C-alpha cells in the first residue's frame, strides 16, 4: 500500500498478532481501510444496534402477549385472480432486494476498473430496484391500513402489538432503502459526470472524491439487504 489515504508501507503481521499490532502503540488501527470506509462500518454497527432493539422489542411483546399473534402468512398473502398465495409479495420484495445487491456489487467492481458508463448504469439499476421495493412496501402498507384497518394500536387479526411493531420495523427499513436510493442516484450522477476521474471537488466536502465511494455506498446498500434478511426471517416467517 502506498496510497496516501491508506498509509502504511511495511509488511504487517497476520492472524491474532495483527490485532494487537494494529490496535497498539498509538497508531491508526485500520491499516488498509480509508477513514470513509471505516466510518461507514462503524455507522453500520450502530445501525445494527438500532434494528436489533426494534427486533428485540418485537420478540419480547410477541413472546409475552396472551392474545394470539396474527398469522403473517395469511395477512401478507396476495391473489392474482385465483387462490391467495401466502407471503408472495414479501417473497418478490426479497428477490428484488437481492437482485439489487448483485447489481450493486457489480457497480463496485466496474467502479474500481474506472468503467464510468457501466458503473453509473449499474448504480441506476440498483436505485430502480430499491425504488420498486419501496413502492411495493407502500402498496403493502396501503392495503393493511385502508383495506384491513390495521393501526399501531389495533388490528382485526389478534394481538394489537402487531401493528406497532410492523409499522416501526418495516417503516424504519423502508426509510433506509429510500435514503439509499437517493444516495445511489447522487453517486451515479457523480460517476457519470466523471467527477472521480477529473478530481472534481465535492459540493459539501470540497474534497476530491475517489471511486472508493462506490464501495462505501455498496456497504450501506448491502446492509439494508442484510437487515431485510433478518426482518424476513423473524417478522414474516416466524
Amino acid at each position, binding site marked *: *500500500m502506498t*496510497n496516501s489515504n491508506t498509509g502504511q508501507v511495511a509488511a*504487517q503481521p*497476520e*492472524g491474532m498478532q*495483527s*490485532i494487537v499490532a*494494529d*490496535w497498539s502503540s498509538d497508531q491508526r*488501527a*485500520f*491499516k488498509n*481501510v480509508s477513514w470513509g470506509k*471505516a466510518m461507514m*462500518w*462503524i455507522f*453500520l*454497527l450502530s445501525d*445494527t*444496534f438500532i434494528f*436489533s432493539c426494534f427486533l*428485540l422489542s418485537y*420478540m*419480547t*411483546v410477541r*413472546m*409475552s*402477549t*396472551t392474545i394470539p399473534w396474527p398469522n403473517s*402468512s395469511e395477512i401478507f398473502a396476495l391473489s392474482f385472480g385465483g387462490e391467495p398465495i*401466502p*407471503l408472495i409479495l414479501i*417473497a418478490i420484495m*426479497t*428477490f428484488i432486494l*437481492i437482485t439489487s*445487491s*448483485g447489481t*450493486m*456489487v*457489480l457497480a*463496485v*467492481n466496474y467502479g*474500481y*476498473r474506472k468503467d464510468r458508463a457501466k458503473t453509473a448504469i449499474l448504480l441506476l439499476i440498483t436505485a430502480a430496484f430499491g425504488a420498486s421495493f419501496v413502492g411495493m412496501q407502500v402498496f403493502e402498507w396501503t392495503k393493511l391500513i385502508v383495506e384491513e384497518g390495521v393501526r399501531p394500536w389495533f388490528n382485526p387479526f389478534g394481538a394489537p402489538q402487531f401493528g406497532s411493531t410492523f409499522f416501526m420495523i418495516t417503516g424504519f427499513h423502508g426509510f433506509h432503502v429510500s435514503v439509499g436510493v437517493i444516495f445511489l442516484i447522487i453517486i451515479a450522477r457523480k460517476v457519470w459526470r466523471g467527477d472521480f476521474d477529473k478530481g472534481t471537488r465535492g459540493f459539501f466536502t470540497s474534497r476530491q472524491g475517489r*471511486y*472508493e465511494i462506490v*464501495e462505501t455506498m455498496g*456497504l450501506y446498500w*448491502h*446492509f439494508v*439487504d*442484510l437487515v431485510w*434478511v*433478518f426482518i*424476513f*426471517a423473524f417478522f*414474516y*416467517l*416466524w
Partner: protein
Amino acid sequence: MAHAEAHAEGQQHPLGIYIQVWVLLFVLSTFSYLVDYFHFEGYLRWTLILLFMVLKAGLIIAVFMHMLWERLALVYAIALPTIALMVFVFLMTHEADNTLLSRGIYFLGLGGS
C-alpha cells in the same frame, strides 16, 4: 487476507465469486420462502428459517461486504460488539417469559392463588 488482488486499490475480486454468491442467495431465499409455503411447523421450521437466515447473512457480509478480505482488526471491531446483542436476546427472552407468566396468573387467572 492472502488474496493478492485485495492489495490493489480497494476491494477488487473476480466477478465469478459475486455471481456464485448471487445465485446462492436466490436459492437460499427460495428455500426460506418454501419453508412457509409448505407449512413446516415447530422445531423443523425454526431450524430451517434460522439456518437459511444465517447462511444468507454470512454470504452477504463475507463476500458482498468484503469482510472475507479485510484485516482482522476491522473484522473483530465490527463483529465482537454484536455479542452484546446475544446477551440482550437472552435477557429479553427471560423477561418475556416472566411477563407472560404474570399475565397468565393475574389477567387470565391461570394457576397461582
